[in-house]
C-alpha cells in the first residue's frame, strides 16, 4: 500500500505598509513613477547617509500585532542582514532578527473540519529592496530604487497549515485584518502582499518534520495553491525514490508549474545579522500600546455584526459586503450619502458582483465612487430613470466612474413623465395591438406586459414604467 503523506506548511508573508514615506527617509512610497525618481541618498545607500525611522511604521506594526493576538516586544531593535545583491543598495537590509516587534500570536481560520488557530511566530519590520529590470537587448540588468526602503512587515507563521485551502484561508484572514486596520491594501497581484511558502512533507503519523524548502515568487492565490501542489508532489517523488529533500530556496514558475532551486555558490546564506548601530532601540510603553489599541478601527467581524443589526442586512450579504475593506467602505460611504442601505447593498450584491465576475475583477479593484452610486440610486428613486436604464447607467459608473446626473442628461435617458405625451403613445399602441387588448379583456394578465413593452419600445425605453402601467390600465 502506498504511503500516506502529510504536508506541513508555514508562511512568511511580506506586507507593504500604507505609509506615505519610506521606512528610513522622506521619499514617497507612491507606486509607479519613472525609475529612481523617488530616491535620496538614504534609500540608495550613498556614503555617509543615515536612516531615521518612520514612526508610522512602528504604529502599523503594533496595530497588526495586536489584531493578530501577538505580544508586543516593548524593547525592540533593528538588525542588519548582510548580503550582496544589486537591488539592496547598502548590501545589507535593515530588518529585525533578535528582537522583532511582535511575537507569539495567531489567527483563527475556518476549515472543513472546523475552526483552527494558525500560530504567528513573529512579525518584524524591514525595508523593501529596489526593483531589477532585465534588459534583454543589452544583456544587463537595470536597478530602480523607487521601492528601496518602502516599509514592510514580515509575518512569520508557525508550521501549522496542512493544505492549500488552509493557506488561502490564513492569507485571506491576514489580508482582511490588515486591510481593515488600514495598514496596507494587501494586493497580491501588485505585490503589496507577498507570501513565501515553507513546505515539507512527512508520513502521516510521523513526529518529526521533514526537510523544508522555501518557495518564492508567488503572486496570486491560484499560484500559491498550484505551487503547494507542485512542491508537495516533487518532495513526495523524491522521498519515494529514496532521495532526500534539500533545504533550499526555490523559485516558483507559475507558467511551467514547477519550482527551480535558486542556489548559487556565491550565496552563502550566512547573513551575519547584528544590531544596526545607526538606529536606536524602540521602547514601546504600555500607554503607547493602549493608545493604538483604542484607535483600532472596526475589524471585519464587528463590522459584519453591525451591518446585520444596524442595517438589517442578511447574513450572506453582510459576509460579501465585508469580504473586502474596499467593498465595505463603498457600502458605508454610499449609505451615508443616500441613507438607503438596502438599496446600496442590492446594487453591490447584484450588479456589482455580476460585473466583477464578467470582468474577472477583485473587490479591491473597484474604481467607482460612492458619490456616483448614491446619485444613481437617487435617480431611480426619484423616478428620473427607470430600472433598466439604471442598469445601463450603472455599467458606466462601474467601468468609468461617470457622473450619473450628467450622463443621463447628456444621453437623454430621463424617463418621460409627461402624461400627455405618454397618453398619446399608449393610445397608439392600443390601437395597433387589438389582439392583445382583447386578450387582456379576456383575463390574460400577461397581455398587459406586452403592451407595456411596446410602449417602452416606442418611447426608446425612457418611459416611467409606473406611469405607463397606470395609464394603460386606465385606457383599457
Amino acid at each position, binding site marked *: 500500500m502506498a504511503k500516506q503523506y502529510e504536508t506541513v506548511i508555514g508562511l512568511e508573508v511580506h506586507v507593504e505598509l500604507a505609509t506615505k514615506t519610506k521606512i528610513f527617509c522622506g521619499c514617497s512610497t507612491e507606486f509607479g513613477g519613472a525609475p529612481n525618481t523617488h530616491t535620496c541618498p538614504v534609500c540608495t*545607500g550613498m556614503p*555617509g547617509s543615515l536612516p531615521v525611522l518612520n514612526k508610522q511604521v512602528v504604529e502599523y506594526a503594533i496595530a497588526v500585532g495586536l489584531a493578530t493576538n501577538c505580544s508586543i516586544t516593548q524593547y525592540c531593535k533593528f538588525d542588519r542582514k548582510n548580503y550582496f545583491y544589486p537591488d539592496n543598495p*547598502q548590501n545589507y537590509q535593515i530588518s529585525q532578527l533578535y528582537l522583532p516587534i511582535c511575537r507569539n500570536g495567531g489567527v483563527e481560520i475556518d476549515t472543513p473540519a472546523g475552526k483552527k488557530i494558525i500560530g504567528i511566530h513573529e512579525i518584524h519590520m524591514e525595508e523593501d529592496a529596489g526593483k531589477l529590470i532585465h534588459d534583454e537587448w543589452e544583456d544587463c540588468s537595470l536597478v530602480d530604487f523607487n521601492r528601496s526602503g518602502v516599509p514592510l512587515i514580515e509575518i512569520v507563521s508557525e508550521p501549522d497549515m496542512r493544505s492549500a485551502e488552509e493557506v488561502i484561508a490564513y492569507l485571506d484572514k491576514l489580508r482582511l485584518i490588515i486591510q481593515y486596520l488600514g495598514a496596507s491594501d494587501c494586493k497580491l497581484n501588485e505585490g503589496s502582499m507577498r507570501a513565501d511558502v515553507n513546505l515539507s512533507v512527512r508520513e502521516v503519523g510521523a513526529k518529526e518534520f521533514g526537510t523544508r524548502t522555501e518557495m518564492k515568487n508567488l503572486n496570486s492565490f491560484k499560484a500559491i495553491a498550484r505551487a503547494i501542489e507542485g512542491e508537495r508532489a516533487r518532495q513526495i517523488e523524491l522521498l519515494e525514490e529514496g532521495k532526500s529533500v534539500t533545504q533550499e530556496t526555490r523559485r516558483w514558475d507559475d507558467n511551467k508549474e514547477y519550482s527551480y532551486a535558486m542556489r548559487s555558490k556565491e550565496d552563502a546564506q550566512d547573513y551575519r545579522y*547584528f544590531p544596526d548601530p545607526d538606529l536606536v532601540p524602540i521602547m514601546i510603553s504600555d500607554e503607547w500600546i493602549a493608545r493604538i489599541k483604542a484607535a483600532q478601527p472596526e475589524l471585519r467581524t464587528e463590522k459584519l455584526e453591525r451591518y446585520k443589526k444596524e442595517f438589517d442586512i442578511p447574513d450572506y450579504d453582510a459576509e460579501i459586503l465585508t469580504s473586502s475593506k474596499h467593498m465595505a467602505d463603498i457600502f458605508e460611504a454610499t449609505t451615508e450619502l443616500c441613507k438607503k442601505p438596502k438599496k446600496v447593498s442590492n446594487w453591490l450584491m447584484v450588479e456589482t458582483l455580476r460585473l466583477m465576475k464578467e470582468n474577472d475583477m477583485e473587490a479591491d479593484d473597484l474604481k467607482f465612487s460612492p458619490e456616483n452610486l448614491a446619485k444613481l440610486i437617487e435617480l431611480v428613486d426619484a423616478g428620473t430613470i427607470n430600472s433598466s436604464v439604471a442598469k445601463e447607467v450603472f455599467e458606466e459608473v462601474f467601468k468609468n466612474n461617470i457622473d450619473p446626473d450628467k450622463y443621463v442628461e447628456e444621453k437623454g435617458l430621463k424617463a418621460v413623465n409627461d402624461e400627455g405625451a405618454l397618453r398619446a403613445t399608449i393610445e397608439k399602441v392600443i390601437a395597433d395591438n387589438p389582439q392583445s387588448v382583447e386578450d387582456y379583456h379576456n383575463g390574460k394578465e400577461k397581455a398587459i406586459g406586452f403592451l407595456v413593452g411596446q410602449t417602452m419600445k416606442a418611447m426608446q425605453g425612457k418611459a416611467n414604467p409606473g406611469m405607463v402601467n397606470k395609464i394603460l390600465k386606465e385606457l383599457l
Partner: protein
Amino acid sequence: MSLMSLTAVELGKKIKAGEVTVKEAVEAAIAQIEKTENRLNCYVTVDKEGALKKAEEVQKLIDNGSLTGPLAGVPVAVKDNMCTKDLLTTCSSKILGNFVPTYTAEAVVNLEKAGAVILGKTNMDEFAMGSTTETSAYGETKNPWNVNHVPGGSSGGSCAAVAAEECSYALGSDTGGSIRQPSSFCGVTGIKPTYGTVSRYGLIAYGSSLDQIGPVAKDVTDCATILEVIASYDEKDSTSVKREDYDFTSCLVDDVKGLKIGIPKAYFGEGLEPEVKKVILDAAKVLEEKGAIVEEFDLGLADYAIPAYYVIAAAEASSNLSRFDGVKYGYRTEDYEGLHNMYKKTRSEGFGAEVKRRIMLGSFVLSSGYYDAYYLKALRTKALIKEEFDKAFEKYDVILGPVAPTTAPELGKSLSDPIKMYLGDIYTISVNLAGLPGISVPAGEDSKGLPIGLQFIGDCFQEKKIIRAAYSFEQTRTYKRPGMIEE
C-alpha cells in the same frame, strides 16, 4: 610672520576687524600649501579655485554683517571622509577615487554656515583604518616635525596640515584615537567629543558606534570654538544627542583648583616609552602645582579594550563598507564576467590591504557560529569597560594619561606588524568604546624633537571639564611650530 601662524580665533578676529581680508587669509594658506605640501602630502584634494571664490562670498557676508562668528572667513581643511558637495571625497581609497558627493556632511554644513572657507580635503588612512596615514591610496602624509616619520592616523593629513600651517584648523574623525593620536604626533590639539555630539550625517562610516567628528587646531581655545560651531543635534542622525550645553568656550578658564584628576596606573606599564612617561608625569606635577588634586588609581580592563574594539569596529566596517560594490558610485573594475565577479574584482582592486584585512575579520566574527563567541563577547566587554569608567568618574573629574605609548614612528615601520600597530591605540580606544570625550594637547618632545601629547578623558557630556583642564595646562607652555615652516 605669516597669517597662518595665527590661531583660527586670532585670524578670525583680524578678519572681523577688517585688518585682514578673507582672500588674504585664503591666499596665505594656499601659499603655505604650495611651499610645504610637496614634502608633506597633507591633502588629497586642494580646491584653490573654490576656496578663492568662497572667500569673496564670505567677505561680502562679513561686510554686510550677516556673518559675525569667530570662524568667519577662516580657512579650514576637512578630512576626506566627510562628504562635501561637488568636491571629490575619496576616504583615501581607490574605490572612491572619483566620488563627488551631491550633499555635504552636517558638521561641514555647520562650519559653512559659520563662514568657514574650505581649502580642501585631507589625507587619511584608507577609510580611517590605520594609525599612520600610510594606508592611504594617495601616498602617505609625512610628519612636519620630521618628514621621515609618520604624522599618525587616521586623521594624519588634518593634523599635519594644522602643524604645517597649511590651514588654520581642520576637522578630523576619531574611531579609536584617530584625532588624538595624530594630534599628539604632530604637536597640535584635537578633541574627540562625546558620541552623539557632532552629527555623523555625511561622515563615511567606519565603525558607526564609535565614529565621532572633532576639531584639530593649534590650541584649546580654537578647538573649543570649533566644537561649539560643529556640534548640533541633527534629526538626520538617529544617534545624535540633544545636549543642553553647546557653549564649550565658556570653560576656557585657567583654573584647576580642586579639580580631581585620576591617573590610571595601567596606562604607565609595559610598552610606554620612558620619555613619554616622563612628559606625562611632569604634566601631572604641573597641574598639581596649579591646585589640582592628582591621584593614581586602578582603571580595570584597560588591556581588553583593544581586542573588543577590533571585533566591534571590524564587524561594523565589514557591513558599512559592503555598499562599495561598483554599482552606484566609485570604482568599477574594467573586466568582469557576471555580477559576482564584478563585485569581487571591484572590491579586491578598490580596497587596500588593511581595509581588506578588517573586512575579512569583521565578516568572520559575524559569521554563523562565531557571532556569540566574538561579537557578543566584545559587546559584553564594552559594557564592562563602560562600567569601569563610570566608577572612575564617580571619583574623578577627569582622567589624565598619555595619548600613545610612543612618539611618531618612522615611515614604513608599522604596517608589517598589524597587532603591534593596533597596540599603539591602547590609551585612546577605550574612550571610543565608552563614548567619552577626550582631548590631546601638546606636552613636550622626545629627544629627537618629536612632539608628545597628553590626554584628558572626561565623563560623557563633560567636555567642559577636559577643555578647562587642557586650557589650564596649556597656559604653562608656549606653542611650538615645526622647524620646516620657518625655513
